[in-house]
């Protein structure tokens, strides 16, 4: 019973700032923007945003997998080092997270712009300016750059904890180094992979600043649309309905990923 009292501050916090706001969002989503009465019209309007929704999910998934492809070898390498080197490299991975997210995105703008650092260097070499910004690639780059540490952290912790004797056992039973990886290391790191994908996908699917700064007018994402509803279109009811839809999709994705890794006991918690 005593332990329960220790959780009281957190419960209070959660109730005030998470549970109640969710109910507020639900209330707004199901009410009329003019009269405030019960209405489903916000949901009827969602259909016209389906392509933006699809694009958001598509770019977030691509970003998550790019993070995996870059992050897995990095985590694997760090986990194979002696503890002291591990601490240093881990610190380096964490370091960009201490910097402002906005600052990092703006720095990319000044790097990638048509008159930016890269293109002006290329210009001096006589190369025509490259279309580095205002496209999907730039958005993915921005997302990957900002969220890569969230991929490396869970992967590193899984790989670092892995029982080295299991690798010896696999080798003993006839596995070549490549087979040791595919048959033991990879399956055992699935919880880390799922957790990393989730931790990148969830913030990426609702991001808005990156797409606005690095994307073209065509790459408007869900986060941007929701922001617009609240700040410029003054339709918080539609914004709430969009948020709710996004939340359901995210929860569904987490559920799917947990199902996928269900063969191995650890669940992903975010």
């Amino acid at each position, binding site marked *: 019973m005593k332990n329960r009292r220790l959780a009281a501050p957190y419960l209070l916090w959660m109730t005030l700032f998470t549970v109640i706001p969710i109910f507020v969002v639900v209330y707004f989503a199901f009410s009329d923007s003019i009269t405030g009465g019960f209405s489903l019209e916000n949901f009827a309007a969602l259909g016209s945003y389906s392509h933006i929704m699809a694009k958001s999910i598509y770019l977030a998934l691509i970003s998550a997998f790019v993070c995996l492809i870059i992050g897995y070898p990095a985590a694997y390498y760090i986990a194979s080092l002696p503890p002291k080197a591990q601490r240093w490299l881990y610190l380096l991975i964490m370091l960009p997270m201490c910097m402002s997210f906005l600052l990092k995105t703006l720095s990319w703008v000044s790097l990638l712009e048509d008159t930016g650092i890269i293109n002006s260097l290329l210009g001096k070499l006589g190369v025509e300016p490259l279309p580095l910004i205002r496209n999907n690639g730039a958005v993915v780059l921005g997302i990957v750059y900002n969220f890569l540490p969230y991929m490396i952290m869970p992967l590193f912790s899984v790989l670092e904890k892995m029982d080295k004797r299991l690798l010896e*056992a696999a080798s003993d039973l006839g596995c070549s180094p490549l*087979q040791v990886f595919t048959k033991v290391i990879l399956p055992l790191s699935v919880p880390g992979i799922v957790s990393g994908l989730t931790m990148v996908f969830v913030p990426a699917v609702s991001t808005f600043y990156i797409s606005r700064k690095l994307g073209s007018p065509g790459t408007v994402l869900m986060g941007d649309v929701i922001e617009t509803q609240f700040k410029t279109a003054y339709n918080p009811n539609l914004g709430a309905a969009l948020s709710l839809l996004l939340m359901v999709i995210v929860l569904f994705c987490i559920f799917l990923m947990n199902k996928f890794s269900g063969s191995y006991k650890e669940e992903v918690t975010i």
Partner: protein
Amino acid sequence: MTKELVRLKDCRMDFDGQTVLDSINLYINDNEFLTLLGPSGCGKTTTLRIIGGFLQPTSGDVLFDGERINDLPPYKRNVNTVFQNYALFPHLDVYDNIAFGLRVSKLDEEEIDRRVTKMLETVSLTGFEDRKINQLSGGQQQRVAIARALVKEPSVLLLDEPLGALDLRLRKDMQNELKRIQQQTGITFIYVTHDQEEALSMSDTVVVMDRGRIQQIGTPENIYNEPENAFVADFIGESNIIDGLMLKDYLVRFFGRDFECLDKGFDPGEPVDVVIRPEDIDIVEPDPTHLCGTVSSVTFKGVHYDTIVDFNGFKWLIQTTDFCPVGSYIGISLGPDDIHVMKKSEYSGIFGDYSSYSAEYEEINDPDADPEAHGYEEYGEYGEAGET
């Protein structure tokens, strides 16, 4: 009839400038049950890991069927290992754990199924196919580990203290089980343990190791009855070890008396260590023709009494079914075959005195006792993982 299978030639192993194994020369015959026995830090696990291919000796050769295999990685050796903590794959069930090695060698599923099913029978785990590893008891995990290694039908099975984590009762059962499996399959077993009883009851050949060196190789009877030095005599069973003087062949002097013995080949007048096993000593009436002493402690052990007798300050352990109360004055009689004479060694004077009886006896019986208490250094044997 017996064919040599594995040979270690002058193997030496250094870790960080410390010698962990020194001049190991050893051969293992086909079909043999060989045990590497010694206290923790003696180099037995290192020796096993060299044979398994997880370590390369600093110098010396590892031969398999006459071929040098020093640089052959583990996965190319026809050797399988039962690891100390089993190292079963947590993401696979019992069946898939056992089938793992066969699937790696790309056997067809029908053949795999036949062999896994048979192996499950051998280790009495039929019906456990779909169990997860974490749903198994220690003994069951241990049997899965044995099955997983045996199903590959290796020429040699390496077992690294496989029974260390089991309770006494289960350990006894598994000892019989392992011996049965070894005889049934005809596979060579190389077994590592610090438990002398386990070594004596299971092995064809026992290799006693200490401080990175082989102290003695022999049959269990040979090791027990004819220990080569004070370390072996003390590590295998209980022994009273007394300073003696070899007067001539078949005659040894200790405690100022001459005793007939069965040993020869020493220089006349050579100082020697004399071993007398506590169960070989007969208690007789105290009279001047016999060695006499005072009983200083008696402990009931079930089958016998552990009786400590003080002979002018040097205390002996006698295991006897006759009860002699503390303080009684008794004589003892020793026949020629109760006395075993050994050359002096670096271990002389360290072992075999029961003056501090209670402490030392407890420690000898405790397999996990701190080896440093014996007065020699412990070597790191398995990196950070340690031995038990």
